[in-house]
């Protein structure tokens, strides 16, 4: 007779959950679930308006909760799996601000005569009668909103994860919706689907690397907790194999999301193929989340092994900057150019990470805030310059834009100057911070490489500006579409942030440096 014995624990210990500290994450994920309910229950005609309200409402509420987090709530919560600390909150705030701006661009419907930037049904066959019928009826794929919310929820979790398993979970919650969103473009759908496929396959590889690295570190430290791993690096010398393999694989997984060389191959294809509002969202918010997680992993969990990863990271940072700018010089498509520029910026950001100091941490966080907002604005402008078959991607069609629409060209020039790091824009303050932190940490040669890379990057940014203002418009000059209030607001926020963080950066620099250090 088989007897089913249930092991009776004396008392079960329940995890204590600090709901106030976790509120922003729960609000965004709750809004995402609400978005799925809306998809199920609200009729097609009203769906977009309701989704827009749920999305922006959810993100704004979460932002308020992040900003208003009382100091007493800070700490390692939820059984040690989440660290709600200064850097975590600063990064969550950055992600939410960037996401709100990006969602305003996603909501734009006036730019494309057929509707928003997304295919009426992402599943319909490209070029089929079914697709034309759906376009004619004005259908729209409102699942974009809950998917974006799930991605933002994953990002908020990613930057506060204090446990390798939660880190992996957050990575997947963040990435899976993005793979879908990348493949939903209304125009050039095959390119978009190709981008989604590449992003998915390479992203899965990166996730597997991250997971394998986590397993190795677990084997070494006997725990998934960042603090316990840090203790193991301090107290358990030896087992260099497990240490180095775990560290390398984990680093590879995170650097993939950050688009650092040699894990940058996906960036140009995905940035080009994805619907432009989503590209802005990815380039801005995902960058923040990826570097937020990278900072926490490297500073908290692997801080004791800094002597192991710092030399490699100096090299990766230098190579990333140089490869990014050289490839950006050679690209003739505006979205690809911005993608390679984002690779180069990953290199600059890595300087702050590898500095491994409080100054490096706050400089990287400030850089992420500045870069995220400028990038969302830049991609929003790219969306507005259109030819007959969608966006005018080729650089040559941007010639003479400064004469036909000076305001738009001026705004884009401002974003490009900020990305190049010209003084009085946010890019200068940000670059200055990470360079100073890197010099302080002894990285003179990488900073020399960074200055060279900046000089090269100025070439291709200024090339576009010269093209816009000093060249004659070609015969097939694209039209500049006047967007609705939504995109205008997003671009306006980006312009104000770019100028404010460049001219009066002190308040935000103080906020960033006041948010350090990480709690463990």
């Amino acid at each position, binding site marked *: 007779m088989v007897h089913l014995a*249930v092991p*009776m624990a004396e008392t*079960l210990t329940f995890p204590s959950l600090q709901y106030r500290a976790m509120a922003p994450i729960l609000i965004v994920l709750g809004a995402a*679930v609400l978005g*799925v*309910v809306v*998809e*199920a229950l609200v009729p097609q005609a009203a769906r977009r308006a309701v989704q827009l309200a749920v999305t922006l409402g959810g993100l704004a509420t979460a932002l308020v909760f992040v900003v208003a987090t009382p100091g007493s709530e800070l700490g390692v919560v939820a059984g040690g799996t989440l660290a709600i600390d200064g850097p975590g909150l600063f990064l969550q705030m950055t992600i939410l601000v960037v996401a709100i701006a990006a969602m305003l661009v996603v909501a734009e419907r006036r730019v494309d005569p057929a509707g928003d930037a997304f295919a009426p049904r992402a*599943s319909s*066959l490209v070029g089929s009668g079914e697709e034309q019928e759906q376009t004619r009826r004005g259908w729209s794929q409102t699942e974009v909103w809950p998917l974006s919310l799930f991605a933002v929820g994953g990002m908020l979790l990613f930057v506060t994860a204090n446990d390798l398993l939660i880190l992996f979970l957050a990575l997947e919650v963040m990435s899976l919706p993005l793979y879908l969103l990348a493949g939903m473009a209304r125009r050039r759908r095959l390119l978009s689907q190709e981008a989604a496929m590449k992003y998915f396959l390479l992203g899965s590889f990166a996730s597997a690397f991250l997971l394998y690295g986590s397993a190795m570190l677990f084997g070494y430290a006997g725990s998934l907790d960042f603090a316990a791993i840090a203790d193991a690096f301090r107290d358990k010398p030896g087992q260099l194999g497990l240490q180095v393999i775990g560290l390398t694989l984990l680093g590879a997984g995170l650097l993939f999301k950050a688009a650092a060389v040699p894990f940058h191959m996906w960036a140009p294809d995905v940035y080009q193929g994805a619907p432009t509002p989503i590209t802005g969202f990815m380039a801005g918010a995902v960058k923040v989340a990826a570097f937020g997680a990278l900072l926490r992993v490297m500073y908290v969990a692997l801080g004791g092994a800094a002597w192991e990863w710092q030399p490699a990271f100096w090299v990766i940072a230098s190579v990333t900057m140089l490869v990014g700018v050289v490839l950006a010089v050679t690209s003739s498509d505006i979205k690809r150019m911005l993608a390679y520029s984002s690779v180069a910026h990953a290199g600059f950001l890595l300087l702050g990470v590898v500095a491994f100091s409080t100054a490096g941490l706050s400089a990287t966080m400030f850089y992420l805030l500045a870069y995220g907002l400028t990038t969302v604005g830049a991609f929003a402008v790219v969306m507005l310059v259109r030819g007959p078959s969608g966006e005018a991607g080729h650089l040559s069609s941007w010639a003479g834009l400064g004469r036909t629409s000076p305001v738009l060209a001026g705004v884009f020039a401002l974003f490009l100057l900020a990305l190049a790091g010209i003084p009085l824009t946010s890019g200068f303050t940000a670059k200055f911070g990470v360079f100073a932190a890197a010099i302080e940490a002894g990285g003179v040669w990488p900073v020399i490489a960074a200055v060279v890379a900046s000089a090269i990057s100025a070439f291709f940014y200024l090339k576009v500006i010269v093209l816009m203002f000093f060249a004659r418009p070609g015969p097939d000059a694209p039209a500049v579409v006047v967007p609705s209030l939504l995109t205008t607001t997003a671009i306006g926020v980006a312009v104000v942030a770019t100028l404010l963080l460049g001219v009066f950066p002190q308040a935000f620099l103080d906020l960033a440096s006041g948010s350090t250090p990480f709690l463990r």
Partner: protein
Amino acid sequence: MNVYTPILVLGILAFGFALFSVVVAGITGPKRYNRARLDAYECGIQPTPQPMGGGRFPVKYYLVAMSFIIFDIELVFLYPWAVMVDDLGLFGLVAMLVFLTNLIVVYAYEWARGGLEWD
């Protein structure tokens, strides 16, 4: 090394049997090809032409499979909870309700948007 010998022998036997079966079937088996023989065996969907060349992969089958997996996973979580329901108390009940709510939301979405209609 001794402990691994049975595994090695088993591996060789398995490989040898597989090789033997394939070769012998090729030599002795009758070669009468017809429509039924080329069909998918007992289950699964009909193989379709390449998606690009016309003809599409029937998505409805995949939706049924997905739904099955979701409810399968649901049971995986429900059983241990049911066994330990007294010990888990209110905390377990609330956690389970949150989990079930999420599942119901997705189920409602699938139902309302026609995911359960076969044709």
